[in-house]
């Protein structure tokens, strides 16, 4: 009896042995290879403030309304949105003709320990939005918030309804923190004294941030390594792995006061949906967001579970809302083959329909 490919068992053994040798050789090459370049799409800096940069990407700009992408602050670098040619959300949207702006919050140091959520939402985001409108010459803009960038940007949209936001997209952004999964359990105020943490260590070190995320899925590294071993003879897989691995190992620290406010007001007290969040002295009322809203969530997202993300639809004042739940986790919405096939076209089509 032979294998499905018509090989005898001995031939199959020999073939597997040959593959194993090839994989071992590739593993040695991989260990010696230099880090791959990431974040290569051409762009220019149109605004800078301390560590923060607003990038405008090259594009045909056939669509007049610019798109401002607001990612997470801290945790990781924004290179995940522009990983490699052919595997880049930024490149995809620019190719669709969008005038694409990415806000890079930057890597903060000790001198930024006083940075608060208030400052981000009431000082930085308004200036960034203004700069987008000035440089694009457009009368309105579209906002996309990813991960932590979603509660920050939607709070901005709610606080400043006079800013002409034509459409809003929440990609894997946690809104109702009572459904935020393991992080919500571990950050419970009965067990986690955020004031003591911040007062003792100041800025949360990048290693602590890394440990927190690794603890969410302790077997992730094992399965990643195994999958890499089994696919070492596929150059395309290896290239993708190297780029993703480079990004995945670049954690950044949290500014002290930002972390305190983020944990206390969002995770512990869930003020955003509780309509008790005050930023810049003003109450954040999500009902003030009246533009069309599109929410995208990952069904297996354990960082921002789907119910936590979907909750935005229950609180905005918009009548035109849409929801898309895709298989996969937090990162699979923004990077990888599944994202490029399912998520990105969905976001682009929806935005295109709103911005005509």
């Amino acid at each position: 009896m032979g294998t499905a490919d018509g090989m005898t068992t001995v031939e199959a053994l020999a073939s597997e042995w040959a593959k194993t040798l090839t994989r071992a050789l590739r593993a040695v090459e991989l260990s010696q290879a230099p880090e791959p370049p990431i974040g290569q799409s051409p762009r220019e800096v149109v605004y800078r403030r301390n560590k923060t940069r607003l990038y405008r990407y090259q594009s045909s700009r056939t669509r007049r309304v610019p798109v401002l992408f607001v990612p997470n602050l801290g945790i990781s670098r924004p290179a995940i949105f522009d990983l490699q040619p052919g595997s880049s959300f930024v490149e995809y949207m620019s190719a669709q003709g969008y005038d694409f702006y990415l806000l890079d919050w930057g890597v903060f140091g000790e001198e930024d320990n006083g940075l608060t959520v208030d400052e981000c939402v009431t000082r930085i985001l308004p200036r960034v939005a203004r700069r987008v409108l000035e440089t694009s010459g457009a009368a309105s803009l579209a906002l996309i918030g990813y991960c932590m960038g979603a509660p920050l940007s939607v709070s901005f949209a709610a606080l400043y309804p006079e800013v002409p936001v034509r459409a809003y997209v929440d990609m894997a952004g946690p809104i109702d923190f009572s459904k935020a999964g393991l992080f919500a359990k571990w950050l419970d105020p009965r067990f986690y004294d955020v004031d003591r943490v911040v007062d003792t260590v100041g800025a949360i070190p990048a290693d602590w941030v890394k440990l927190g995320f690794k603890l969410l899925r302790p077997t992730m590294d094992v399965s990643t390594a195994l999958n890499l071993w089994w696919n070492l003879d596929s150059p395309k897989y290896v290239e993708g792995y190297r780029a993703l691995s480079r990004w995945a190992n670049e954690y950044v620290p949290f500014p002290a006061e930002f972390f305190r406010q983020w944990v206390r007001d969002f995770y512990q007290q869930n003020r955003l949906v509780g309509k008790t969040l005050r930023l810049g002295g003003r109450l954040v009322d999500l009902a003030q967001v009246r533009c069309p809203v599109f929410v995208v969530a990952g069904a297996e997202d354990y960082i921002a579970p789907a119910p936590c993300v979907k909750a935005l639809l229950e609180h905005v004042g918009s009548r035109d809302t849409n929801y898309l739940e895709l298989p996969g986790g937090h990162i699979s919405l923004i990077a990888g083959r599944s994202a490029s096939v399912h998520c990105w076209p969905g976001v682009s089509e929806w935005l295109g329909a709103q911005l005509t």
Partner: protein
Amino acid sequence: MSASNPAQDAFEAWKRTLEEGTQAWLRALGQSGGAGPGSGAAQASQPVGSASGAATTPPIDFSQFWRPILSQGMELWQRAAGAQGAVDPAFARQWKGFLDQWIEAWSKGLAQAMGTEAFAQALGRYLDQTLTLAGPMKKAVDQQTDAGLRALGLPSRSQVVGLATQLVALEERVEGLEDRLDVLKALLTEVRGALAEAPRVAGRRPSPRPASRRPVEGS
């Protein structure tokens, strides 16, 4: 080879090869003079200094240590492979599938365990202990480092951070000034526009006639 289960036959063949290889290895050890002294696994030995020059001590059976584990692993694998019904001779894919399921099971189990209040409590206690140790240690290290840098006449970390903080505050003030200038600029533009509009509006109204020089009556 059995026609019904080639994968099992492959396992058996591999086991036989392993056994034969082990025996060959042991024989080679025996021909080279045997293993070193102190082996607890040594069996009954031949008399020392035998005329034949062959191994005077019996070879040590190292395989007794790993054989039980390997046999158990092989049996488990065979059972898993058999349990899948029609055995796929592509055993590498089977093995990968088995590993993936094993990791997924561990992942689910760990996620359940870590989702309990007890785990959150334990994590919180561990963090408290870390902070209790880290706090004074960090303070002591910072103080010593500052003192050392002062002695060398170099700026301390806190001084550099303080300077950076001042720069950040300065940048913020400059931005505030820029914002106010933008507001003024917008106002000026509005006023200029209003002024430019005013003469046009004025030009459309009939201009007031100058006072006519009528002759005064009686002059």
